[in-house]
């Protein structure tokens, strides 16, 4: 620390005054510049950081909140702040405050790209749609053939049987042999609100494929299958706006609210890796047959947003961290190899075009009445 001033020829009183003045001076100097000096000396040096804000699908919130992700981005000069929103809702929002948007699927990204005239997009990771359920619920569904062995022997949820059950308005308590969950409500997969959320749109994508005789529907087919699609959504009643809320309901309230919930595989995989997530051996994940991959797609709106997109797409460390949150990296590498086998390739289908999907979503949103 600073040395005390010395003088041989001053009185004790004068000396005291001078010392006080010096202390005040040092204090003032510290006040002005001290913090800056302290900041420069204290942490290891890093490049200047720019802040970029984004509107994202809620299922990626925990990825961006992860301190290791925050640190990895900071090392690359980025501080990212995110707000969660339903992936379809993003397209309708005022995007002026944001440097990027990061919806959960390619059709949602495509819509924003068209609306805003953006040509670039990055799809660094994807996640198949999956059904979070419970062992006894799976057993009850198996009694009606709605859960059966898939192409590779693993159990799958048969979407065709779900469509039939919905058509007949079959209640849980009428499923043959079901004593575990005798609820007097229609057997339906729990989804989010299709008006807001991408995961509900993905359900529409895979269910319309089945209702259309195992073919991706075009505009005419979309109109034809609409009554079936409406049943799947309308009779659920109130649905949450985001998949994060639905998955939270599934984990918190359980089978009473969401006996089987359509979620991103990533949400379940991430919960599996966090000891405090609430996930137990009473939670099981099945793939629907067929299923679709939701490709999380970043659309940059500013140069900084573009930097983030490029970084997520190419940085192996960030790919590793995304995998920790359950997202399957698009590029091959150790992070991608560490995943358990996904849905059987024979049971993965394509998503309808953006226009066809929007056409069905708009009708379902109108309430189908």
């Amino acid at each position, binding site marked *: *620390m*600073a040395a*005390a001033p010395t003088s041989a020829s001053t009185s004790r009183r004068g000396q005291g005054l001078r*010392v006080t003045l010096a*202390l005040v001076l*040092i*204090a003032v100097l*510290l*006040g002005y510049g*001290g*913090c800056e000096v*302290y*900041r420069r000396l204290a942490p290891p040096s890093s490049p200047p950081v720019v802040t970029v804000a984004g509107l994202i699908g*809620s299922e990626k919130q925990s990825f961006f909140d992860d301190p290791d992700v925050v640190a990895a981005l900071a090392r690359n000069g980025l501080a990212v702040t995110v*707000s*969660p*929103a339903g992936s379809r809702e993003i397209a309708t929002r005022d995007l002026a*405050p944001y440097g990027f948007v990061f919806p959960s699927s390619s059709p949602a990204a495509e819509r924003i790209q068209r609306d805003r005239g953006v040509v670039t997009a990055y799809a660094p990771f994807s996640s198949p749609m999956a059904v979070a359920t419970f062992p006894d619920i799976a057993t009850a569904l198996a009694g009606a053939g709605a859960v059966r062995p898939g192409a590779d022997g693993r159990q799958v949820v048969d979407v065709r049987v779900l469509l039939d059950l919905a058509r007949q*308005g079959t*209640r*849980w308590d009428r499923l043959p042999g079901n004593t575990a*969950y*005798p*609820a*007097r*409500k*229609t057997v339906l997969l729990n989804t989010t609100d299709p008006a807001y959320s991408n995961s509900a749109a993905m359900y529409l994508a895979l269910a319309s494929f089945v209702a259309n005789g195992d073919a991706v529907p075009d505009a005419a087919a979309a109109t034809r299958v609409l009554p079936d699609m409406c049943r799947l959504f*309308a*009779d*659920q*009643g*109130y*649905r949450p*706006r*985001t998949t994060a*809320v639905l998955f*939270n*309901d599934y*984990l*918190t*309230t*359980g*089978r*009473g*609210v969401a006996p089987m919930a359509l979620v991103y595989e990533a949400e379940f995989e991430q919960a599996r890796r966090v000891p*405090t*997530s*609430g*996930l137990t051996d009473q939670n099981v994940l099945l793939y629907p047959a067929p299923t679709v991959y939701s490709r999380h797609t970043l659309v940059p709106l500013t140069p900084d947003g573009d930097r983030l997109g490029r970084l997520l797409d190419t940085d192996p460390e960030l790919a590793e961290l995304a995998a920790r949150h359950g997202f399957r990296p698009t590029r091959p590498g150790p992070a991608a190899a560490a995943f358990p086998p996904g849905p059987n390739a024979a049971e993965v289908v394509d998503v309808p075009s953006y226009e066809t999907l929007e056409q069905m979503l708009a009708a379902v949103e109108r*309430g189908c*009445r």
Partner: protein
Amino acid sequence: MRRALLVVVAGLLLAACGTATGPPPLTLRVLAGSELADMAPVLDEAAEATGVRLELQYTGTLEGADTVAAGRADGTTDALWFSSNRYLETIPAARDRVDTATRIMGSPVVLGVRAERARELGWDRAPVTWSQVAEAASTGRFAFGMTDPSSSNSGFSALVAVAAALDGSGRVLDPAAVDRVTGPLAAFFAGQRLTSGSSGWLTDAYVRRATGGDGGPPLDGVVTYEASILELNRSGRLPEPLTLVVPSDGVVSAEYPLTLLRSASPEARAGLARLTEHLRRPEVQQRIVETTARRAGVPGVAPPPEAARTTLVELPFPTDKATLDALLTTYLDRVRRPARTVYVLDVSGSMQGTRIDGLRTALIGLTGSDPSLTNQFRRFRSREDVVFVPFSDAPGAPEPFSVDPADPQPSRDAIATRVRALAAGGNTAVYGSLEAAYRYLDQAAAADPDRLTTVVLLSDGESNRGPRLPEFRAFLAGRPPSTRGVPVFPILFGEAARGEMEQLAAATGGRTFAASDPQALDAVFREIRGYQ
């Protein structure tokens, strides 16, 4: 020593560097359900930890949705915190104004049945369905209290659950289904003997009746939040504990989503995110469960130890306003026990001018002239008897009006015509006029006993004619059982004798409402509708 001082000064300044980076304290304005008052200790601790304080402004779920839909919340409010956003989400203008909603906690709407009656009915042992409850209610074996579904979310949730369960199709309700279940719903609500504008007053009234206080004979139970029932049992105020009964065919639960408004500032947005993150921490969730008897909003935190252990099957909640409006109208106009609503109105000289104008406006507002979102549920209902007892030097003769279920609007128009003719002059005979109202009710109850009967008293000054409060109390003690339990709801207005009005409310099992000025009478008269 000086060197040491310098070290201390420098240390303090560097410590200041650290805290300078923390976010500044922030107060967020929140429209909230009144039952959240019990969160005060948790929210105080949260404000301490996060610097974010919530200023809760209490209002009903429907009124809140109305405020948001009309854009009146934008700029004056940062967030919403009601027991549920489900009604709000059916109104496009409201749903477009809200942003992220994060569930903080939950509580299902279930039955609390006094232990002995639960044993008699066998409800303490085997699963019970809403149909079985309806059967007991319609045969006089289960008399219960429930909040008004158009005023309070617990009653609204119960109404949806009962209707969905009695429909039994397993599908979400639609207007045709509502029409189909009208008969079974009427059987269920034949057992409702007490209504309330808030879940807090409902449990208070239940306790008063259970302990032999005034406000009517004891009830067999309440339909309300599981948390309210557990808190009642914990409070030690009940002579007989309530047995929790969770209908096996399903419930509707409150989920308390803390909801950001889109119009909120970036600071408010960040502040609410900080607070939400804090409230969802396991240790804070644990504290919420212990303090409020609600269930946690995150996985892995155990429910209150006395909470129901069975699976809570959540019934599908309608997503269109037409169905919910049909359900509320069916309840109010066709299904619930009809009301007998008495207004004892001071028209003495001091009421002249803005005061009597305010009174007229408030009453005319209940005659169906205002088509706004919530007012359609506040108007005088089909089958309702409305009785005016205007008074000054002496009570006027009671003037009864009946709202004709076959053609209700002309009846309401007749009420409006009478109200417009109210004129002020003379002295203030409060208690003599109340006695006149009760004497009228003795006769009316003898002729037609099956009504939910209440008295509203509006006076702007102290009684200066006729009997006094002690004499009125003696009069009250001499009433027959049919009218002794009729509650009086005094409005604190003008120079009304506040202390006496509180005593009057307590003596009759009512409660007071405050109207700060003549313009406030409108909102107060609408609020009281939940208790009538």
